[in-house]
C-alpha cells in the first residue's frame, strides 16, 4: 500500500470512527427514561406529605395526606388526615389510574370516579389523575434527546417526549429534564393539544431512601391560570410490607 493510500485509508477510518462514536455512546430517550424508572423504582411505599393548593384566585387549602403505593406504583391509595372537613376521605387508584374510587367517611359511601376524569384535576389541585398515577416514564412517554441543559446548576438531558397510547391523555407533549449523573428528574413541562406550554412540575430535595431516589418536594404550577400545588413529603418509607388488600375497593371503608 502506498503511503498516500495508507494515509487516505487512515483518515477515512478515523472519520468513520468519529461519526459512529456518538451513536454508540449516546443514550436514547427511552434508555434514559428506563434508567430514571430504575433509580426511582420502589415496589411499595408509604409517604406522609402535606399538600398546599393555591387557586388562581389566591385562595389556599392545606391538607395532610398519607399515600401508599403498591406494584411499583401501579396502585395507589391516598388518605386525607387533616383538616377535619375531609379527614378519612380516601382515593384509590388502580391500573395506573384507569380505575379510581373515592371513599367519603361522613356518609360511609364509596364512589367510582368516571374514567373520563383521568385528565381532570385531583380535588382541585393542579395535578390531574394522570399526573398522580404512578408508573414508568419509559412506558408512558417516548421521544428524543433534544440536548443538554443545566437545571439548578446540574447538567441534564433534555428529552422531548410525546405520550404513548398508554400515556397521559391530558398532554400532547412534554419536556423532561434528567440529571445526567443521578438520573433524577428535576423538572417536567407539559404542553396541551394546541402546543402551548401549560404546566410545570418541579421535583426537588431528592433523597436516597433504601437506595431509591425519592423527591421530597413536588410543585406543579399551572402556567395559564397561576394555580399552584405543592406536596412536601414529611416521612418516606419504601419497599415496605403492605397488605395487597389495602388496595381494594372493599377495604376503603375499613
Amino acid at each position, binding site marked *: 500500500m502506498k503511503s498516500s493510500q495508507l494515509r487516505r485509508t487512515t483518515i477515512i477510518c478515523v472519520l468513520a470512527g468519529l461519526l459512529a462514536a456518538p451513536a454508540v455512546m449516546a443514550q436514547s430517550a427511552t434508555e434514559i427514561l428506563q434508567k430514571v424508572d430504575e433509580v426511582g423504582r420502589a415496589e411499595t411505599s408509604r409517604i406522609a406529605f402535606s399538600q398546599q393548593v393555591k387557586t*388562581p*384566585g389566591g385562595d389556599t387549602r392545606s391538607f395532610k395526606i398519607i399515600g401508599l403505593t403498591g406494584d411499583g406504583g401501579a396502585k395507589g391509595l391516598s388518605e386525607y388526615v387533616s383538616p377535619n*372537613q*375531609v379527614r378519612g376521605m380516601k382515593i384509590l387508584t388502580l391500573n395506573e389510574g384507569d380505575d379510581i374510587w373515592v371513599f*367519603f367517611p361522613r*356518609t360511609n359511601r364509596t364512589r367510582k370516579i*368516571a374514567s373520563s376524569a383521568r385528565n381532570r384535576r*385531583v380535588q382541585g389541585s393542579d395535578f390531574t389523575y394522570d399526573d398522580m398515577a404512578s408508573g414508568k416514564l419509559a412506558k408512558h412517554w417516548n421521544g428524543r434527546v433534544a440536548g443538554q441543559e443545566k437545571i439548578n446548576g446540574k447538567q441534564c438531558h433534555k428529552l422531548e417526549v410525546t405520550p404513548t397510547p398508554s400515556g397521559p391523555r391530558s398532554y400532547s407533549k412534554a419536556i423532561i429534564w434528567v440529571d445526567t449523573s443521578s438520573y433524577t428528574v428535576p423538572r417536567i413541562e407539559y404542553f396541551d393539544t394546541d402546543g402551548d406550554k401549560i404546566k410545570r412540575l418541579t421535583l426537588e430535595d431528592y433523597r436516597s431512601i433504601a437506595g431509591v431516589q425519592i423527591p421530597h418536594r413536588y410543585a406543579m404550577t399551572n402556567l395559564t391560570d397561576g394555580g399552584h400545588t405543592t406536596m412536601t413529603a414529611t416521612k418516606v418509607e419504601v419497599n415496605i410490607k403492605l397488605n395487597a388488600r389495602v388496595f381494594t375497593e372493599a377495604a376503603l371503608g375499613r
Partner: protein
Amino acid sequence: MRKQLFDRLATALSRHFGVFLIGGAGLTGIAALVLILFPIRIETRVMDLVPADEPSAQEFNDIVRQYASASQIIVGIKGGDRQQKIAFARALKERAHEATYTDPNGQEQPYVKRVTIGADTDFIAEHGLLLTKKRDLENFDELFADLRLVPLLTAYNDFFEREYIEDSASVTEREKEDRAINGLKGVVRWLEGIELAGRGDQALPEYVDQVTDLLSIGDPYIFSEDDQLMLVMVQPAISFDQMEETMDGVRALRDGVVADILTQPSAGGSSRRFADLNVTMTGMPVLALEEGEVAAEDMGASSLIALVLVLALFVLAFRMWTAPLLAVLNLVLGIFWTTGVVALVFGRLNLLTAMFAVILIGLGIDFAIHLNAAFSTARSEGKDLKGSLLAMFHHAGAGVLTGALTTSAAFFALALTGLDALVELGVTLGVGILLTLLSSMTVLPAMYALHVRVSDRLFKRNPRAPKPVRLTFPVLADLGALIGRRPWLVLIAFLLITAGLGTAMKDAAFQPDMLEIEPPDMPSVVLHREVLERFEIHPDYAMFTEKELDTTRTAVKRLKKNRLVGRVDAITEYVPSVKEQQRRLPLVNKMGDRMRGVITSAAPGTPTEAPPAVQSSVSAAEAEQLLSELERLQMNVQEMGQLAFTSVKKRLKRACDRLTGGEDPRFSRILALKNRLAQSDTLSTAVGTYQRHYLPRLAQKLARMANPTPITVDSLPAKIRERYLSDEGSNLVTIYAAVDLWHEGKTELFLSATKKASDRVTGTAVLVDRLIALIGSKGLMATFLALGTVFIILLIDFRHLGYAVLGMVPLLAGFTWMMGLFVLLGKKFDVINVEAIPLILGIGIDDAVHVLHSIRRQGIGQLPNVLRHTGRALLLTSLTTGIAFGAIAFSAHIGMAGMGQLLVLGVASCFLSSVVLLPALMRIFIKDKPSNEQGGTR
C-alpha cells in the same frame, strides 16, 4: 436686566396701579367669557387617562359607540326577602322610562332602553333544550323520564351522584359549578312545596310556577347563591361617549326613579313598601358619575380648607388682615385665569388635574408671603409707595421669579412625555404657576398700592407700621450654629437616615387595582366588590369583536377552559352551530314528544292537567321511599360539599352547607324537611296533591323548551341581537375574570388568555394594564425630565457647575426621604399618586435655591443668621404649601389622597434637607467668602 425690569415695573405700578387693576379685571373677564363659551368638563374616570390614540383605547371607544351593552348599568338589590327584591325589580322595569336626559336640542329623552330583571328566560323557555349540550341533554332525558315526585327525586339523586360526585373533577369547570348550585337550590325548593300542598296553601299555584321554572330553565332571576343579592341589568339608550347626557340619565335613574320607588308607601300606606331594601348601582356610567361627584366635592372642599388654613397661617405669621386677604384674592385670580386656559386648551379636568387649584394655592401663596414681607418691611421703614415697591421687587422679586420659573419649567417638562394625562398635568400646573406669578407681580402690588393710597387718605399720611413677624423659630438659628460647629456630624447623621430610608424604598409596592384607589365607601365601588365576592365575577373585563360566528365559538370554548375566566358573554351562547343543533335535535324531539304525551295542552299559559296515572295519593311504600331518597339527597349534597371543599369551590361549598348544615347535620334543611314529612299523617296525600299540581306545569314548560325550530341569528329576539351585534354585523364577546385580577400577576395571565382569543382585545382590564405600563415608563421619563430641567435652570441661575450640583443634592435626598417614609407608612404607589414624584422635584428645588442664594450672599460663616431669616421664610412657605397639600391628603379618593400625602412628605423632606444637609455640605466644601449676589428675602 432683571433689575431694570423690576425698576420699570415698580415705577409703573406706583404711577398707574389702576391700569394694572383694570388689566387684571380684563383678564378675569376674558377667562369668564371663555368659561361660558367653553364650559370645562370634569372627566375623572381612570379610563380617561389612557391616550385616545392608543389602539386598545380606540377599539374600546368603537365598541362603546357600537354596542350600548358595553356600558351597561348593574342595579344591586339587597335586604328584604326574595319576593320583595323581585317586586322592586319589576317596579324598576315599569318605571325606568321616567329616567330622562336632556339632548343637545334641549329635548327630554328616555335614558333607559331596556331593563333585564333576569336571564333571557323567554328565549330559554322557548329553545332551552336546543341550547343544551348533547351530553347534558342525555342527562335530562334520564332525569325527566318520569316526572312523578318520587321517581323524579330518585333520578335527581342518580344525576347528582353521576355528575357531581363520580365526575366531581369536572365541577372545577365554572358552568358546571353554576349548574350544581342552581340544581340544588331548585330541587330543595321543589321538595319543600310538599308541605304547602299538604296544608292546601293558597299560594301553591304561584309556588308551583316558580319551582317548575327552577327545575326547567333554572333561576329566572340573577340571585347570589344565598339569595341575598339580586342583580338587575339596565341598558342605556345612548352610548357612554355621550358623557354629559349619560351623567344626566344616570342621575335621573338613581336620584329619581330608584329613590322614588324606595320611598313608595306600602299598600296600607302606613310604611314604606321597600323599607327593608338597599339598592345601589354600579357599572361604568355609575362609577363615572360617582367619581365625578366625589372629585368635585373633594376639589371644592380641599380648595376651601386649603385657602382658609393658609389664610389663617398668614394672619398668624404677619399679624395683619388686609395683606392675607389680598393674597387670597391674588390666588383666586391666578386659579381663575388658569381655569380659563385649561378650558380653552384641553376642555376638561382629569383625575390628575382636578386638584390643580389646591396645588396652586400651596405654591402660589409663597409668592405673596415673600412679596408682602418685603413690602411691609419697606413701608415700616417709612419708604413711600414707589420706594416700597422697588424694595419689594429688589428683595423678594428675584427669589420669587427664579422659584416660579424653576417650578413651572419642571412642570412643563412633563409635557415632553407625550402621555396625555401628564401633558395636561404639566401644562395646567406650569401655566398656573406662571399666571399666579403674573398676578403676584402685577395685580397684587397694584392692590397694595391701592391699599396704601386709601389708608394714606384715611390716616392722613401717617402709615401704621406693620407688626413684626410673630413666628420666629429660634431653633433654626441654633440649628445653623450646630451645623457651623459640627458639619461632619450633621452630614453623617443625615446621610445615615437617608441611607436607611433609601433601603426602605426597596419594599415599595405598586397598587394596580383601580378599585383600591377609588373612594372605598362609594356605593358603586361597594357593589363592585360584592359582585366579585358573591358571584366570583370581576368587574374589570376584556372584550373583542369578531366577524365570524364559528371563530367566536372556538374562542369562547377555549376561554371557558381557563379557570381565570368567570364568564364569557357572547351571542354564540344563544346560537349553537348548525352541526351542534343537528346532533341535539333527536333528543330534543324525543323529550318534546314525551312531555306532550303526558299533558293535555303543551301551549304555554293554557290550563293543563296531570294524566290520570298521576294519582292524588301515593302508596305508603312510595312515601317511605321519598323519605329514604331525602336521606340519600342529604348524603349526596354532603359529599358534593366535601368535594367542593377540597376543590376550593367556595360558592358551591356554601350552597351545600346551607342545605346540609355543613359540619352539623342538626341544621340541615333537607333532614329537617325529611323529619317534618316523616311526622306528617297526610304525607301520601300531600305528595299526590303536589305532584298533580306541579307535574303538568313542569311537563308543559319542558315541552315548550323542546322547540325543534332551528335557531339562527335572524331568529333571535331583537334584545339579544342588539346586545351582541353591531350594525356592521360584527359580534361582541365580553370576558369577565373569576378572580381578583390585580393581584399576584393575574392580569398578565388573564390578558394572555384573552389575547389568544383575539389580538384586538380591549376592555377595562386591557386599558388599565396599558395605563399602568404607560404611567410606569412615562412617569420615569417625567422624573428624569424634571430633574434635567431643574439642573439646567440651576446652571443658568448660578452659572456654576458646583453650585448646580450642590442644589441637586438636597433635592435628591429629600426625594429619597419622601419615598422611604411613604413606604414605611405602609402606603402603596398607584397610577395617581405616582404623579407626585416629578411634581415634587419642581416644588422641592425652591428651598435649596433660596438657601444657596442666601449662603452665597451672606457667607457660610453666617449660617445661624441664614437659617434664622431664610430658614424661617422657608418654614413658613413649606407650612403653607404643606397645609394646602395636606387638604388633598384627606380626599375621599384614595389615589388623590395618596398624591397629597406624598406631596406633604416631599415638601417636609425637601425643607429638612435644604436647611440641614445643604448648609452642612456647603460648610464642608465652600470657602467662607460672601459673594456680591443680590437677592430675595429668603
